[in-house]
């Protein structure tokens, strides 16, 4: 008898293998949980990998305080369902200085996300952190290892990566060093959606089209999710049927106009779309396309 494994079966098995390897060899792992669809898949895979035990590590949400309200609601419930501890980290300095996406541009991402993440990892002394990044997202990620080694200051050196052969991962660290681990490295956006459909994984409803209040800023449709959104004189949010392909801080995340209100419709639209998933994100466009590579060297996930 031969049992045919399809591509999702293989991706799933690889991701589970990666997670178990970390738990077996690292002393204090954590899973970064951003509440997005990739995090949802990663968490689901963790539950499978360690079943019937709950995943033997906590979830960490590096909170910028500017996520969509629906994300916060889902976050709190999901962690409870999985039987895992949820750690929430907010950069105190960023809060005190009132850093926000409207007044501070790239500094907002740096302070709340990059610095916040480093603070949290240092505070808890995690030696391994799972992240949901995929290699198909961005050119710098295409060359990053599954086990991505970071210096004591969390920097990534693209020219000094450990060779990664077969499914053998070198997890050995000197004191103070850490590893970022990307179990979804070989998944594509389409794989993620198909897996969500096949496994019935719960995701934030923002991924599905619904009438939402938006304004247009620099060609980007931005949702007015709470009263902190500073409207320009005469600017009026209008209800349009939109959905989101990625989720981040709501003022920095562009919506797309869409009628796709079910997963099936979203996948169809995705297959026929003509723009990439990260296009709605302001973060990659800094610095002549090398934005992500630079951010990673500075410690961004």
């Amino acid at each position, binding site marked *: *008898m*031969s*049992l*045919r*494994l*399809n*591509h999702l*079966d293989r*991706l*799933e*098995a690889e991701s*589970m*293998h990666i997670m*178990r*390897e970390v738990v*077996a060899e690292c002393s204090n792992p954590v899973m970064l949980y951003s509440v997005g669809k990739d995090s949802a898949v990663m968490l689901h895979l963790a539950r*499978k*990998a*360690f*079943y*019937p*035990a*709950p995943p033997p590590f906590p979830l960490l949400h590096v909170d910028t305080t500017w996520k969509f309200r629906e994300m916060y609601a889902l976050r709190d419930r999901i962690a409870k369902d999985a039987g895992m501890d949820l750690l929430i980290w907010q950069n105190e300095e960023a809060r005190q200085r009132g850093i926000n996406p409207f007044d501070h541009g790239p500094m907002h991402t740096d302070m709340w996300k990059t610095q916040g993440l480093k603070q949290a990892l240092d505070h808890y002394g995690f030696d391994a952190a799972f992240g949901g990044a995929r*290699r*198909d997202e961005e*050119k*710098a990620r*295409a*060359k990053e290892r599954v086990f991505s080694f970071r210096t004591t200051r969390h920097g990534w050196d*693209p*020219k000094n*990566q*450990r*060779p990664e*052969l*077969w*499914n*053998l991962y*070198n997890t*050995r*660290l*000197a004191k103070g060093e850490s590893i970022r681990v990307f179990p979804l*490295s*070989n998944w*594509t956006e*389409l794989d993620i959606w*198909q897996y969500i459909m*096949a496994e019935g994984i719960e995701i934030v409803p923002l991924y599905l089209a619904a009438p939402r209040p938006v304004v247009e800023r620099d060609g980007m449709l931005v949702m007015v999710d709470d009263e902190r959104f500073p409207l320009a004189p005469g600017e009026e949010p209008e209800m349009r049927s939109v959905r989101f392909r990625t989720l981040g801080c709501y003022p920095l995340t562009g919506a797309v106009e869409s009628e796709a209100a079910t997963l*099936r*419709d979203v*996948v*169809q639209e995705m*297959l*026929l779309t*003509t*723009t*990439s998933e990260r*296009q709605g994100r302001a973060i990659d466009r800094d610095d002549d*396309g090398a934005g992500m*590579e630079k951010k990673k060297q500075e410690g961004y996930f």
Partner: protein
Amino acid sequence: MVPPHASSDTIARSGYATDALAAEDIDAYLASHREKGLLRFITCGSVDDGKSTLIGRLLYDSRMIFEDQLAALESDSRRHGTQGTDLDFALLVDGLSAEREQGITIDVAYRFFSTEKRKFIVADTPGHEQYTRNMVTGASTADAAVILVDARKGVLTQTRRHSYVAHLLGIRNIVLAVNKMDLVGYDQAIFDVICRDYAGFADRIGIAAFTAIPISGFRGDNIASAPSPQTPWYSGPSLITHLEQVDIGTSILQDKSFRMPVQWVNRPDLDFRGFAGRIAAGTVRPGDEVRIVPSGRTTRIARIAAFGGDLQAAVAGQSVTLVLADDVDCSRGDVIASAGDPPESADQFDASIVWLSDEALMPGRGYWLKLGTQTITASVQQPKYSINVNTLDRLAATTFELNEIGVAEVQCDRVLTFAPYEENRTLGGFILIDKLTNATVGAGMINFALRRAQNVHWQALDIDRETRALAKGQKPQVLWFTGLSGSGKSTIANLVEKKLHAAGKHTFLLDGDNIRHGLNRDLGFTDADRIENIRRVGEVTRLMTDAGLIVLTAFISPFRAERELVRAMLPEGEFCEIFVDTPLEEAERRDAKGLYAKARSGKLKNFTGIDSPYERPENAEMVIDTMNTTPDEAAAAIAARILGVWVPQL
């Protein structure tokens, strides 16, 4: 989708049937996509072979490139491109800014695309000889290799190198993609000559079969469909069609005997004990009789536990959690295998090795060896030979340098459960990790176990080391003195031994005099010999501590790695490193044996501190500052520590 700014027909997207189906009948599309298989392949070729252009083309044709990326590509093409006003597909895949500046692809990059029948993961690796390690990395997980040849240049040295490496890493599906056919007028004669050339070479290195396809990555000929109108003489499949059909041996692997390296023991509560791992070969079902290797205990599979319901069967490639019928000892590193045909265990191997580090192999030095879920200490002996990857000649070698490939014996400090690499990549492939820097320095493929290891079984002794130590009323341990020549190691060690002896302890002092003149008479002072010297001393101290003795050693032992190797040989807490810290100027001033003078005048080579390094201990148990401590004071402190710590308080 035709890009809005496409100006020339040369970049028209071929597209696959997928697009239409997704638009018309999404449910049918999803159903078919759900049944897709997965193929991982590697592309090999040098900068000029058009490799990045080919990959860019594959991504473009399969709609993996979107308008915003295309717009970025157009602006990049104008700025960095090499194709004039045409789109330079290579820029899509040459990701990191460092390599865009240099115009080369430094590291392995993974790309993804899919067609109706398969999802593809492409390992895009650089072609230069100095990046052999990157190619090896990409090849290690590949089912197929696409070897690019520039039709204008034919089979080159690099073609041979790429083919050899792909074959060595166990890739049995080789595609010879003769690229840039557009630049030779799609001439069949040229294609035929290249195929003939390659066949002769392939045969020599054991490539039984390969598929040759004439293509143009730039123009798209014979990529998505074949034959291209330009090559009516070609009757084979297009590159994509071939990659969609190629057999990756999944069913063969499933039919083999069952093997699963245990990754992690899942024990959430007293009622459940499961063994998590990824199946390396075969098929498993509840009720199957299995053997735990190396312990040899047998039991049955009770359940295959899974989220959403137990499985009735699982096959090679799946990550599962097995529950066994009996409460047998089994932990990470063990292999659960079919009871009737378990894998071999041995501690010495003949292996093919690829060196991945700037720092050359130190034969005899202990490295971490990781194979499957087992991590042990192993050393590589002096190579039998290295391979000139360009001519395939076997060369005499004393070590392996970065990117070198060769064959050597590997000795492990305990038995390893394995399969020859040719039979199973998971149980036959290993990496070597430097114990101090933690870098992955080498990769190896087991060819076979050495017979002498298989037949020498550990004798289980009735009188064990604890019994012997108890009879002597002491805790065995090693006082390892290290420091420069003339630092005072032997002097202090002698005094310590006297004090321990006076306290009724059973001791033995090993130093250059009683070791170098006998056991290690054959060794000189090269780095390799120094390592072997210390390894042997380590083995002797281990035997002596097994006998219950307190062993004192006085050797320069300049390298941290060897001192750590000895530490690792002994039970935790039995290795006490004592750094006799005398500055070089002071040791040279004392120069009791006149050795420094000789070394300075060039009469003595490889002298520690002069033309050979001394690596200071970082975590020594004791440091003796000889500038401020007399030998007697030092000896008293050391003896007090040993007697105080280890003598039971009566």
